[in-house]
């Protein structure tokens, strides 16, 4: 019995002129197109676009902040020493008193005494997350040109649900995590390419009603960023 898999692959090969019965007349002498040959063909693809950035570090951080603000995200810049006080200020301004944290976050981040930090342990259900006011996480990388944050959902970034269900997300970004271009970020993320990955560019939004970007649908309706620079 031929399976659909076999049938589809055979049809594709016939369409491409590489089916066994077509090989001779199409001048294909090898038994099959080898992976080497495909790799060689892949190598000929033109890639004349911009790969690396051109901005100095200061301008890169400026651009990142500006692009985040374009999406309606507030950016708070501070030094490493000011991290816990900045977190406290940002949360106070949002009237948030209890916030979820991924299990890998500890120490100086949590120094603010008037905030209750609730560790998201494995037993936390989605319904429980839904009742929380917000979540505080780190990230893996960021893209200045597009105002994008890259998560690989490590112990300091939390599971995918954790940065999705609560209505508020506060993300801490370090200056050395901010890359300028999309290609730089994709190459940086390559070692993590088989982990679950999420990119976040501003709060959740929609353009479905009259093509106007409206902030806030199902993901967090507010995204704040603390950008650390020493």
């Amino acid at each position, binding site marked *: 019995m031929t399976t659909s898999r076999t049938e589809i692959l055979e049809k*594709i090969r016939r369409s491409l002129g590489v089916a066994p019965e077509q090989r001779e007349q199409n001048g294909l002498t090898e038994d099959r197109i080898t992976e080497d040959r495909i790799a060689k063909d892949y190598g000929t693809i033109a890639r004349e676009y911009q790969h690396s950035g051109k901005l100095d570090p200061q301008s890169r951080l400026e651009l990142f902040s500006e692009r985040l603000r374009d999406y309606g995200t507030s950016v708070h810049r501070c030094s490493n020493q000011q991290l816990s006080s900045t977190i406290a200020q940002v949360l106070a301004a949002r009237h948030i008193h209890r916030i979820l944290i991924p299990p890998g976050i500890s120490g100086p981040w949590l120094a603010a005494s008037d905030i209750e930090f609730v560790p998201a342990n494995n037993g936390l259900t989605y319904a429980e997350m839904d009742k929380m006011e917000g979540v505080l996480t780190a990230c893996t990388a960021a893209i200045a040109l597009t105002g994008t944050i890259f998560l690989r959902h490590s112990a300091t970034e939390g599971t995918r649900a954790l940065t999705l269900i609560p209505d508020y997300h506060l993300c801490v970004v370090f200056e050395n995590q901010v890359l300028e271009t999309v290609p730089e970020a994709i190459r940086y993320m390559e070692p993590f390419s088989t982990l679950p990955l999420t990119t976040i*560019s501003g709060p959740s939004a929609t353009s479905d009603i009259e093509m106007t970007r409206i902030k806030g649908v199902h993901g967090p309706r507010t995204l704040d960023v603390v950008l650390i620079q020493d």
Partner: protein
Amino acid sequence: MTVRVGNAAQAPDFPEAAKKQLANAQMRRNVRHATDVIRAKRNRVAAEMPDWEALRESARQIKAHTLRHLDTYLEQFEKACTAAGGRVHWAKDADEANAIIAAIINSHGEKEVIKIKTMTSDEIRLNPALEAEGITPFETDLADLIVQLGNDQPSHIVVPALHRNKTEIRKLFLEKMKLETLGDQPEDLTEAARRYLREKFLRVKIGIGGANFAIAETGSVCIVESEGNGRMCLTLPQVFISLVGIEKIIPEFSDLEVFLQLLPRSATGERMNPYNSIWTGISPNDGPKEFHVVLLDNGRSEILADEKTRQTLQCIRCAACLNVCPVYRQTGGHAYGSIYSGPIGAIVTPQLQSMQHSQSLPYASSLCGACYEACPVKINIPEVLIELRGKVVAAGDAPASEKIAMKTASFALSSSRRLATAQKFVRIAQWPLVHDGTISKLPGFLGAWSETRNMRSAPAESFRQWWKRRRKEQHS
């Protein structure tokens, strides 16, 4: 085998359907407004990229390369996805894909599914197939929700409810969500959708989506979205099913660096859309416990056979060609009778159906070339349209009036004596039709052509006559 593209096989011809749509003034206002907004945004963010043309060329080459070796890349994807805990199914056509998906849902004894926007599921008519099995699909993309609640058809690839304005949407939500009050601002409408769907995200155990990209190297799937409904559907349920057209494959993870720059800027005019999710098989303690990929052919492998029209399969479904098309902007999406509308719909719909249906669509274009200019993967849509018109004519399926016109033209143009006679005839016959040097209404079967066009009247003297007279005057 039954290839299906929504209800396209039963749809009326484009000219007939377009005439009906053109009478809907509200729909035309909505479409014009929405496409104006999106065009302006797209042009602004494309113009700020100095390497835009280089990105387009790379994207074209990556897609063309992948299609040339599609069999190998599909096998590579299957191997990597399976190794990561995913289960890969192959579906020749719509019915087989629907049956596979229904069987997965039934094996869990579930009666409800939440869906991410996937045009491919509209292509195979998945929702009616699930409903026939007693399974209720909930659309979670705002525009798809509007279409589903309104018992409507998608009219745009990216923004399926583009033909509806906020007043119409408010009325629909009030009625279908059984709300007592609802504001009329877009923010109020999205808030209503958030409340309506949140409970479903937290409760329903099976999610279904498509794929913007399927990566052969890693076996990963990438979903590009804005609202977070995609993240909800692919993260919270216990089972997730991706329905993937076989042309969605890209070779390597790093190829995303090209497509993630082109797609958001072309589709919604944003530097980056709010969310992209990339995942590989299943992950312990994060997301679904079971992940299925259904690789769908449904006519695609046949499109590969023609080297001139194969480029149709490069499409990344950004809909930039719809937003710039002078025909689409007048008629809206429904006139195309296919869930794939606009210029890309006009080439992909008939080809998926082996040119057996939707033969009027390759004619639904003025060949102005704006679609080619806007296309982020450089599909030469006018070239493909002309090629397909040739196929329609060769199959004897050309519109009757065109056949008569072409035969007449061929007769008159094949001898200079016949041409002179024809010209003389036109000069005499045109007099009742000419007003101020313009003909705006032709008689008989030519009337349909002149309904939307004016032409200059034939001059008193033809070029050949002028040339002859001039030579005579010089010699005398």
